[in-house]
């Protein structure tokens, strides 16, 4: 089993700090919404530590409050989580030499934000080990779970504008997108992906839009790259 040094913990937590702060900002209103559907702070913590999905948990609460049948809730939240397949496949090459239990723990705790934090470092920094990457995931997960528990505890007493707090998540996605290594192919991917999501939502694809839009973006990028190779 890989042993983590103090330096690994320090580096992992430092890299995770911005995500942790963002998760606290978003986790408190998410926990407050969980309390509205009857979850206790302990259950909100357990749910957040295991689901570990902001989009899925916000969706769960809003669907439950709207009286959606439980099977429809399962389908909606499961579908919005399928984008994790893409992250898991993208991270696979960097965890191939890691011990299986560590790789499994890392894989089970990947989110949109921690994926963004770890991906660039795993690809470009030889010192960024699977252990450090897992510290990022666990530190972020604990901040999310504690913030949700706090939100479930004190949320009912606070009048938090959820739309404002949840915009932090959008801002984080924008920052991660801007931080990509940009080329003409990247621009094609981003435009095709965003355009596909808009079209799919107009067609009523709902929570499938993110997954299908991402796949369309990757497909457009591959086609563009093949076209560029054909020209040269």
């Amino acid at each position, binding site marked *: 089993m890989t042993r983590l040094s103090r330096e690994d913990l320090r580096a992992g937590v430092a890299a995770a700090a911005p995500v942790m702060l963002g998760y606290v900002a978003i986790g408190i209103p998410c926990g407050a919404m969980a309390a509205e559907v009857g979850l206790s702070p302990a259950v909100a913590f357990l749910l957040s530590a295991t689901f570990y999905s902001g989009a899925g948990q916000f969706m769960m609460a809003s669907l439950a409050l709207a009286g959606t049948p439980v099977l429809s809730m399962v389908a909606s939240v499961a579908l919005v989580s399928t984008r994790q397949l893409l992250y898991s496949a993208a991270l696979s090459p960097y965890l191939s030499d890691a011990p299986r239990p560590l790789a499994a723990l890392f894989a089970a705790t990947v989110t949109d934000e921690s994926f963004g934090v770890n991906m660039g470092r795993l690809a470009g920094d030889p010192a960024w080990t699977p252990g450090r990457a897992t510290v990022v995931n666990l530190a972020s997960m604990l901040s999310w779970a504690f913030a949700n528990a706090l939100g479930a505890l004190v949320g009912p007493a606070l009048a938090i504008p959820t739309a404002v707090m949840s915009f932090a998540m959008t*801002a984080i996605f924008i920052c991660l997108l*801007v931080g990509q290594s940009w080329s003409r192919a990247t621009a094609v991917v981003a435009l095709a992906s965003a355009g596909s999501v808009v079209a799919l939502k107009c067609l009523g694809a709902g929570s499938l839009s993110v997954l299908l839009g991402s796949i369309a973006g990757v497909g457009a990028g591959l086609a563009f790259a093949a076209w560029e190779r054909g020209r040269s």
Partner: protein
Amino acid sequence: MRSSDFLFFYVCVLAVIVACRCVPLLALGGRELSPRVSEALGLIPPAAFAALVANDLFDPSTAPDVPALLSALVVLAVARRTGSLIWCALTGMAAFALLAVVA
């Protein structure tokens, strides 16, 4: 939400989430990927983040969310200047709160 409904929901969704997160990473581990697969994997981050941003900012069932769109432009400028997740999150929330009041 009844306890039995919540338990059913929790177990079903947790199984899907864990499978989506773990199966590709563990199943592909250690294998040599073809250049085309590697190329495709490298395109996943910009595709996913662009899709998530578009998903957050666009809702066909409502009118364009002007405060959100303008706040996204503010965040874009901050991201280009600082590259900081936390500054983007804090600036984005502040801009959105301010613009939502003004709008």
